[in-house]
């Protein structure tokens, strides 16, 4: 009884403990690629064979993602990018607030992109909250597709759509599905990256999963 009556530790303390123990998954290991609409069935088939959740069939999702930016008050650092994801097919699910840091491609020997990431489940009035906080909506899109799991790895195969202003059906960005292979892990668990590379090799040549630096691509003259 006396043990049960011990004072609860404060949330800050438990967070510091978790940080010290390095159990907070704040790194995202990421590989990206795409597959043409015509070949997506083949890919889904292969993934069903390779992944864990075979018996239940592929898990579908239909999410809307809104990207916010929060400008630095001192105008020194780059604006903070925040993303909010909400499930359109399960409205009672909490929103997902994500902070994604700068992607680090590393040298040739590093198998995946590594970027710091914070995934927070939120409910309530998150969009209004961020707006009042001073965030500005940068862009939004919707993704619809399939999710697979293989151990700690998450594989999504999804179509990216523009959000249409009118009642028009949403317009896809391209004739391909975006394929992402990612793992959220605590800092320093680089071994998982090798596993991801091995898994990505199993999807070749159907899909070429690679480290892609969108920052560099974005600034390239087109």
């Amino acid at each position, binding site marked *: *009884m006396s043990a*049960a*009556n*011990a*004072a*609860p530790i*404060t*949330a*800050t303390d*438990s*967070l510091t403990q*978790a940080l010290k123990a390095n159990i*907070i998954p*704040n790194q995202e290991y990421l590989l990206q690629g795409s597959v043409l609409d015509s070949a997506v069935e083949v890919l889904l088939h292969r993934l069903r064979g390779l992944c864990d959740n075979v018996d239940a069939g592929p898990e579908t999702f239909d999410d809307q993602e809104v990207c916010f930016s*929060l400008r*630095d*008050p*001192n105008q020194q*650092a780059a604006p*903070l990018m925040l993303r909010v994801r909400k499930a359109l097919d399960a409205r009672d699910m909490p929103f997902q*607030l994500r*902070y994604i840091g700068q992607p680090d491609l590393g040298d040739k020997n590093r198998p995946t992109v590594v970027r710091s990431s*914070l*995934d*927070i*489940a*939120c*409910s*309530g*009035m*998150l969009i*209004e*909250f961020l707006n*009042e*906080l*001073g965030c500005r909506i940068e862009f939004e899109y919707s993704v619809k597709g399939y999710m697979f799991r293989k151990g700690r790895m998450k594989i999504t195969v999804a179509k990216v759509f523009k959000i249409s202003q009118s009642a028009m059906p949403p317009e896809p960005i391209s004739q391909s599905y975006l394929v992402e292979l990612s793992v959220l892990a605590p800092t320093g668990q680089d071994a998982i990256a090798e596993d991801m590379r091995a898994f990505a090799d199993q999807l070749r040549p159907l899909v070429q999963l690679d480290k892609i630096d969108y920052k560099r691509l974005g600034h390239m003259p087109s």
Partner: protein
Amino acid sequence: MGVTVLQQFPVPENKTGTYVIEMLSKRILALGATQQGQFLVDCESYLSHPQMGTTKTVHILHNSEQPASVFSILESGNKNIHVIADGLFDLFMIKLSQHYTSKKQTKIESKGPRFELGDFCIKLGSVTMNQSFKGILIEVEYRPCVTANAVWGLLREFLQGLLGSSTVIQPPQHLKNRMSEIYTPIDTVHQYLELFSAYRKTTALRVQ
């Protein structure tokens, strides 16, 4: 989650907070309650950077009753916007440290014993800010019911029985216009924030 009422308990002039808590604990135990651990509610407030225009305050609250959640209430003008998030929201606030800075000296918490009595849950919290004692808050939760207006009479009767029939018990400001809605944990947090803000305005009573 049942309906919760948070009530300030006046500390008599010549008594200490510990004494009052002990007195109330004895009274509750005499009613047949059992002590079920301790509880803790804390609140930290962040102010927006002056260059960001009108000042906004983000209050971050934790409640040991919902240990996996972080409650965040943004005060902007006369609007209060809340978000309930998981524990990593605290890390998110660190990311925002450029934009919102913590006012450490106003960190305030209420902690103390937690009792269960039938379907009631009673928490006796002594409020401290910066190690200085500020007052006593009594939280009473009636767990079977989810709407405040249905159970208000019952709760008032219970509180008057506990604190003495002369106590005037008013529904908390936050609950007044949502008496018929389904009660959620954030409503408790709003009540705490209301009273914490009131305590912050008063000067410290005495060192505990």
